């Protein structure tokens, strides 16, 4: 029996596990990454894409804190787009199709070259628990590794059961074994476990597809870049995606196979995501729609597999063949892997602290799909946070967690902790009440300084960041110091630029606030330039001006709510002492143990009146306002 000692052990080498291990190691603590299979580090087990609405925001935040995902996407992205580019900057999001192999290679290279980080291939079967604290891991072959903190990121492997038609078998991601020993052990530890469901579509051999019958979907030009440190020159060659559609014949085949659907015959109990329904779900729930879009995404430059995004299914294989071949362009398609649904365990995230440490098992952190989320980006973001806090625990430092007003990561963790979830949780921008502040473009301005303090940012990135930040400040100052006088321009030019003559002299900063004025044309005016060269700097200056009124208002709102939000509730607070709380609300709060009144107010079933009671009670106790919890 080995007795190797680490500061942090991360179990699982998916997107959560790799970011957790990298973050901890970057902070200088000795870290061990335990994975079932080194070959699958950074594996994209579902669709080969990174980013999208809300998700792209998370990727930029991970990047702003020194994480890997954006950089790996830049190295592996073969088709980039900015979604919502015709809407405002707050809801614009980057999305990349990734070459699976290139992505895995980028992740593995980062892991293998990270100082303080070791990798060991071996399934974890058990946790070492001493005096109620998790202090290590026992592997399949009985090796024991001890650590100050353990991060659990075992995703779809946990108690997984795969369904294709009415057949089902135990399994993790298709082809890999599930982590059942660990699942059984965790159930013994009295952690609350529930079940969710997700699925994937059948994969198709590119060589059997007629692309001439599909609509082409090119990437954006110029090609977007994910990382703040990135460059389009890092991208591999770019490729095309395609769009095709289902039709009435497709739907007939699906309806005909419904009696052998595990979802519609009650074999699957887990709840699937509403926003990512299987094709059979779409046909049933939107019966009046005679066609659905399918995005045909390449799996990689060297791969002949295609991922038909939009026809996730768990219908029997023979039905899948008929469904696929009824679709335009897929008439002769060969399925390389059948689609399937997978049911898996997740741990109720309401049992977590904001640091992602278990409330019941100190020393054990949870990140990724086991917390009920879906998506690589959600997993990676949690992994990074869990890695940071595991490292801080190892160093006897206080935990850190961003608030809802600081990051999508804060929204994610707060939602999970206070609301739990009954479907795989996915990020959307509408979950963020401070959406106008939480943009992709300012993720670095929001988070890099904090990450630097946490020890995650190297000198190179920091120097680049500081240059950018200073350039933004300088340019803002310049625009508010310089005035444009009505006499500076001909009246015709004024009308052309501003929709009418200027009535009085105005600061350039004020003029930039007008919807019709853009930065480039403003700084191109005589006496108003030159503007800054750096596009990122120009963009920040312009967005700040355009959103100014809204941003001020959101900041006011944040300040107004802050006192209530941050009024802290002591860890040992006894809800039974609050007069008038209903039994139901009391039990919910006892269970969730919100750290602040703000969190308490977001626990489902907690009424505004209950929040008032809590506030009044805390006020009477003299707690709350006096002991503000510092949330970033």
């Amino acid at each position, binding site marked *: 029996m080995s007795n190797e000692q680490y500061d942090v052990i991360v179990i699982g080498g998916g997107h959560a596990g790799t970011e957790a291990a990298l973050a901890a190691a970057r902070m200088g603590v000795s870290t061990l990454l335990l994975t079932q299979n080194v070959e699958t580090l950074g594996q994209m087990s579902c669709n080969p894409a990174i980013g999208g609405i*809300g998700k792209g925001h998370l990727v930029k935040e991970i990047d702003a804190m020194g994480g890997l995902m954006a950089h790996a996407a830049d190295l592996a992205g073969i088709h980039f787009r900015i979604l919502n580019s015709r809407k405002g900057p*707050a809801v614009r999001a980057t999305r990349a199709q990734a070459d699976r192999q290139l992505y895995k290679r980028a992740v593995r290279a980062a892991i293998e070259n990270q100082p303080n980080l070791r990798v060991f291939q071996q399934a974890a079967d058990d946790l070492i628990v001493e005096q109620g604290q998790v202090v290590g891991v026992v592997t399949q072959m009985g090796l024991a590794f001890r650590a100050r903190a353990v991060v659990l990121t075992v995703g779809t492997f946990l108690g997984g059961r795969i369904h294709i038609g009415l057949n089902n078998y135990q399994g993790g991601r298709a082809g890999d074994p599930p982590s059942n020993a660990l699942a059984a052990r965790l159930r013994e530890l009295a952690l609350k476990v529930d079940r969710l469901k997700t699925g994937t579509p059948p994969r198709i051999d590119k060589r059997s597809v007629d692309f001439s019958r599909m609509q082409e979907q090119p990437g954006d030009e110029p090609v977007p870049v994910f990382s703040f440190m990135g460059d389009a020159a890092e991208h591999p060659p770019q490729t095309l995606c395609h769009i095709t559609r289902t039709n009435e014949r497709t739907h007939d085949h699906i309806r005909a196979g419904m009696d052998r659907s595990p979802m519609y015959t009650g074999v699957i109990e887990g709840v699937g995501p509403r926003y990512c329904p299987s094709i059979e779900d779409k046909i049933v729930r939107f019966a009046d729609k005679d066609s659905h879009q399918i995005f045909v995404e390449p799996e990689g430059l060297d791969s002949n597999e295609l991922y038909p995004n939009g026809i996730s299914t768990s219908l029997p294989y023979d039905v899948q063949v008929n469904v696929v071949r009824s679709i335009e362009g897929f008439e002769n398609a060969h399925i390389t892997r059948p689609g399937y649904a997978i049911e898996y365990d997740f741990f109720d995230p309401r049992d977590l602290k904001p640091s992602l440490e278990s409330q019941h098992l100190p020393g054990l952190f949870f990140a990724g799909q086991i917390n009920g989320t879906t998506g690589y980006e959600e997993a990676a973001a949690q992994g990074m946070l869990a890695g940071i806090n595991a490292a801080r625990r190892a160093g006897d430092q206080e935990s850190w967690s961003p608030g809802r007003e600081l990051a999508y990561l804060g929204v994610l963790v707060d939602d999970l902790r206070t609301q739990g979830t009954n479907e795989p949780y996915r990020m959307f921008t509408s979950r963020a009440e401070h959406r106008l502040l939480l943009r992709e473009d300012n993720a670095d301005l929001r988070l890099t300084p904090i990450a630097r303090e946490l020890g995650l940012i190297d000198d190179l990135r920091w120097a680049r960041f500081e240059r950018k930040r200073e350039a933004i400040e300088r340019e803002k100052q310049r625009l508010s110091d310089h005035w444009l006088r009505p006499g500076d321009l001909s009246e015709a030019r004024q009308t052309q630029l501003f929709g009418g003559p200027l009535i009085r002299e105005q600061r350039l900063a004020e003029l930039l606030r007008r919807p019709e004025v853009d930065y480039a044309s403003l700084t191109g005016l005589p006496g108003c330039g030159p503007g800054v060269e750096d596009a990122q700097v120009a963009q920040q200056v312009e967005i700040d001006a355009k959103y100014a009124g809204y941003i001020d208002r959101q900041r006011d709102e944040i300040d*107004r709510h802050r006192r*209530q939000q941050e009024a802290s509730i002591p860890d040992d607070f006894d809800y039974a002492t609050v007069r008038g709380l209903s039994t139901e609300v009391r039990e919910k709060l006892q269970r969730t143990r919100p750290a602040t009144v703000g969190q308490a107010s977001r626990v489902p079933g907690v009424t505004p009146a209950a929040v008032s009671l809590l506030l009044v009670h805390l006020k009477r106790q003299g707690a709350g306002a006096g002991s503000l919890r510092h949330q970033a």
Partner: protein
Amino acid sequence: MNDADTIAAVATPPGRGGVGIVRISGPKAVEAARRIVGVVPPARTAIYRRFHDRAGHEIDDGIALYFPSPNSFTGEDVLELQGHGGPVVLDMLMAALGEIGIRPARPGEFSERAFLNDKLDLAQAEAVADLIDSASEAAARAALNSLHGEFSHRVTAMVDALIELRMYVEAAIDFPEEEVDFLADSGIATRLHDIEQKLQQTLASARQGTLLRDGMNLVIAGRPNAGKSSLLNALAGTDAAIVTDVPGTTRDVLRERIEIDGLPIHVIDTAGIRDSDDVVEQEGIRRTWREVERADRLLLVMDAREPMHVEDQQLLARIPPRLPVTLLHNKIDLLERDIPDDVDAERAELWISARTGARLDRLREHLKNAVGYQPTGQGTFSARRRHLDALFRAERHLLDARERLEKSRAGELVAEELRLAQNALAEITGAFSSDDLLGRIFSSFCIGK
């Protein structure tokens, strides 16, 4: 600690009517029933008994009702004693309750407890407070409407409609690859329009409610011989004595209150509005001007036989531009020519005689119309200024949302305005309530430290 507290209060207005009700709430309600009634009445059943004090002397006889927790108005054990009223008897009952450690309630404390025990939402709790101090019958009716949650229902319905609208807008943002762009859809504009209309209707009703509760602030000005006091007396009617809210010292603003068809009117006398060298009077002048700033209308009383005096002209030049003015030509009974027509314009002119009462009805109608008052009491809510403020803010955000939708097509800003509109509405029913808001509410319910 408040948990053990039991409170009692006389629930009927002082000195009036044949019935006097004392209400007791808290854990000692049962003990009070045993001591005073001699028995704990069955839950929610009226029993007739004699009421005794501690020494066993009979105080009164009447109905006793018991509502055990949590099925009572406050959520606590509640005992209600309905006796014969009269200040002396009620005092004796309260004294008897005091002997067993039941203390008199602070104003609004019953509502406070009801609110804290989840029995009322904020709008309802405030409606109770309105009911308690409602000055007129119409206001009481409006307060009752709000208590029944009609106002809350309407606001809740609007919030629901807004949530539905937001659903579409948010979907357009979060699912740009879906095939329907909801923002381009005219359905969004139609829905937005529907909510705006609902909001405006509610606003109209709520404004009525505010008028009923808070009344209209009316400044009466005019030279000493113009007939201001006879006008006041005439307006107030002979029965209802003029109530002087604040007993006047020279330094205080003189305020009097009259009522026209249920509309409370606070009359601000401007005796001290003209310039003076006296220090004390100067302070009075300053305060008067502050009142003028807040007024809903200025009534300038003049002698119908004379042209406008220079002093009146100076006054009109000094008042805030937003303050509507009615020129009131008094003493038409002494006029030796035809009475000119009334002018119903921005600056209204009316011709009356306070002494004979001629054409006073026109003045009353004019004042009611000027603030949009319709004395029906039906469908009006007892809205506090806070409610009105929230409704106005919601309206402004909806208008901004429309502008963003039509002009700049900026989806995320439409979404932001709608979110803010919803937050504003939610302030009324208590959802999304901020600490600030609670602070204001609880300050009017006297919550202890």
